[in-house]
C-alpha cells in the first residue's frame, strides 16, 4: 500500500508516468463498472474516460480514508449518475411493460457468463438499470438512491422490482423455461 501513496502523490503532481500506471491498474475493473451502467460499450468508454479525467483532477483531494479503488469506483458511479440526470428528460417515466415475475432455479447459474448478464443489464431501461446497479451492485439503500436520482423511495423500490422482473425473464428466455423452485439458496 505504500506504493499507492507515492502513486497518488505523483498523479497529483501531474506525472504522466504515474497517471498511466494508475489507469492501467484500475481501468479494467472500472470499465466493468461503467459497462453495467451504460447502454453499450461506446457509452461505457465515454464514462470511463470522463471518470478517469475526474480522478486525475481530483486526486489531490483523495484522503486515504477509504480504499483508492472504492474512491475511483464512486467517481465512475457518479459520472454515470450525472449522465442519467442530464438525459432524464429524454426518457419517459414508465417506459416498459410490466413483466410477470418468473424465477429461475439455481442449478444453471454456472452456465451463465458474466458477459451475458452484462448484456441483460445494459438492455434494461435507463432508470431500472440505474436503480438495480446502485442497489444490488454498489450497495446503496433506497433512501440514498432516492436522493441521488431525485425520485421517491417508493419509486426506487418499484423500479428495482421491475428491473428484477425483467432480468429474471431474460435469464429464463436464454436458459429455458424453468419455473420457480423453492430450493433457492438465498
Amino acid at each position, binding site marked *: 500500500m505504500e506504493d499507492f501513496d507515492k502513486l497518488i502523490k505523483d498523479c497529483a503532481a*501531474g506525472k504522466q508516468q504515474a497517471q498511466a500506471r494508475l489507469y492501467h*491498474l484500475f481501468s*479494467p475493473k472500472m470499465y466493468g463498472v461503467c*459497462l453495467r451502467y451504460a447502454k453499450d460499450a461506446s457509452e461505457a*468508454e465515454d464514462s470511463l474516460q470522463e471518470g478517469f479525467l475526474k480522478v486525475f483532477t481530483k486526486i489531490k483531494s483523495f484522503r486515504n480514508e477509504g480504499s483508492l479503488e472504492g474512491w475511483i469506483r464512486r467517481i465512475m458511479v457518479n459520472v454515470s449518475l450525472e449522465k442519467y440526470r442530464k438525459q432524464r428528460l429524454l426518457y419517459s417515466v414508465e417506459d416498459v411493460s410490466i413483466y410477470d415475475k418468473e424465477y*429461475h432455479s439455481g442449478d444453471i447459474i454456472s452456465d451463465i457468463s*458474466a458477459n451475458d448478464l452484462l448484456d441483460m443489464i445494459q438492455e434494461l431501461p435507463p432508470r431500472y438499470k440505474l436503480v438495480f446497479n446502485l442497489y444490488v451492485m454498489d450497495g446503496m439503500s433506497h433512501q440514498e438512491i432516492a436522493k441521488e436520482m431525485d425520485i421517491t423511495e417508493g419509486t426506487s423500490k418499484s423500479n428495482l422490482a421491475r428491473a428484477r422482473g425483467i432480468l429474471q425473464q431474460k435469464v429464463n428466455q436464454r436458459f429455458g423455461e424453468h419455473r420457480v423452485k423453492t430450493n433457492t439458496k*438465498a
Partner: protein
Amino acid sequence: MMKEDKYIDRIFHDKLTDYEKVPPAFVWDNIEAKLAGEKHRKLFIYWRVAGVAAALLIAFIAGWQFSKDSFTEPETIVENIKQQPIQNEITVTKPENSSFATAETTTSFESINQPAEKPITAPIQLVSGNTKAEPSKPVIQKTEKQGFIESLHAVLKSQEPGSKNLAEKNPLMEKVLFSAEELRIIEENKALLAMNTSAADERKWMVGAAVSPVYSVSQSSHNTEYAKKMATPESNNDLTMAGGLSFEYKTQKKWSFQSGVYYNKLEQASSNSAQVVFADNSKYGLNGFFSTPVSENNGKLEMNSVAGVIQIDNLPSTVQMEGNLDRELMSSSILSDASFNQNFEYVEIPLFVKYQLVDSKVGVQVLSGLSTNILVGNNVYLQDQSGKSRVGKTDGMVDLNYSGVFGLGLNYSLTSNLYLNIEPRFKYYFNSLNEDSDVSYKPYSFGVYTGISYSF
C-alpha cells in the same frame, strides 16, 4: 418472495462484482491528450493572467509617474518664490474668468539689483482667493492655503537679473518679508534640494548579488523516429536555483546597463515509457512494466530523451535490463521503476539595458537584454528506489548558447546606497541546446531574482 429477489440479485452480484474488461486503447489516448491539453491550458491562463498583471502594473506606474510630474509640490513653490526677486513682475491668472491681474513691485534693495547667477523663469501654480493684494507677503501665504481655495496660475518672470538668494543676502529683508515659520521651511527645502541634487549626480556604479528559484518549462520537438524510442518526458515540478553577482552602470538619464556572472541550472526529468502492462502484473505490484528502448553504441548504452541522447556509462546494480546487449545495436529495455534526471549547469554572462520608470524610495525598472550561456556541467542521474546516482551524460549538448531575457525590477532603498532588489525575469533560448538534428530542445524559464546591491 424475498428469497427469490435475493436470488436474482445474487446471480448478478456474484458474477459481475469482480467483472473486469480491458478497455480499448484509444480511451487512454484520449485521456492522455486531454490531460496534456489541460496542462497547456493552465499554462496559457497563467501567462494571460501574468500579462494582464504586468500591463496593470505598468499602467499604474505610468499613471503615478505622470501625476507626480504634473503636480508641483508646495515646498518647491516656497523655494522658488524665495529665489524670485521681489521686484519681479507678477502675473496672476485667474482661470475662471480669464481676467489678468498684474502687479509690479518696485522695491529697491541694493542687493536685489545684483546680477543673478541663475535667472529663474518658472511657471508656478498657486492657489489663492486674493489676487490683488500686496505682491510680496500674500504670495507666500498663499502657498499655505493651497488646496483649499480656487486655483490660479501665477507666472513669475524675471524682469531683470534678480538676486540668487534674497533672504540670505539681505537679513533685513528676510526679517521683514518672512515669518520665522516660513524661514524654517525655506531652510528645510534648501537642505532637501541640495541632498537630492548631490544624490542624483554622484552614485553611478552599483554592485550586487542575487539568487533566484527558477521554474523551467521544457519546449521541444523531435524527429518521429527518435520520438518513438524516447523516454517519457516528465513535467519538472522541482525548482532549480540560480544566482550570481552583478554590476551596473547608471547613465545621467534613466538608463542603466547591467552585466555580471550568474550560475544557473536546468533540469529535465524523464521516466520509462509506460506502455505495456504485463498480464501477470499483480493488482498492487507496480514492478516490471517499463519499456524504454536502449541501444548500444561504441560500448555505451544510449537512450533517447527529450533533451537529447543520454549516454549511460554505468548503471546501478539495482536496475534490471532486458534483452541481449552483446549484439550491436540490439534494442533492449530498462526494466525498473526509475526516472532519469538530466542536469545542465550554465554560467551566464548577461548584458541588460534597464530603464527607470520610477525613481523614489521604491524604484521600478524594466529590463531587457541578452545572455551568453556557457555549459559547465552535463550530468544524468538515475533515481530509483535505491536512491540517486550519476549514470552518464547527455550527448550533443552545445557548449555556448544565447538567450533573451526580459523582466521587471523593483528596488527598495534600505539606506542611501544600499538597495533590496526583486527582479522577475523571463528567459528563453534562441537555439536548441542540443546540436543533434533529431532534437530541438529550447526550454524557457522564469525566475524571481532577489538580492541586495550597493551603489557608489
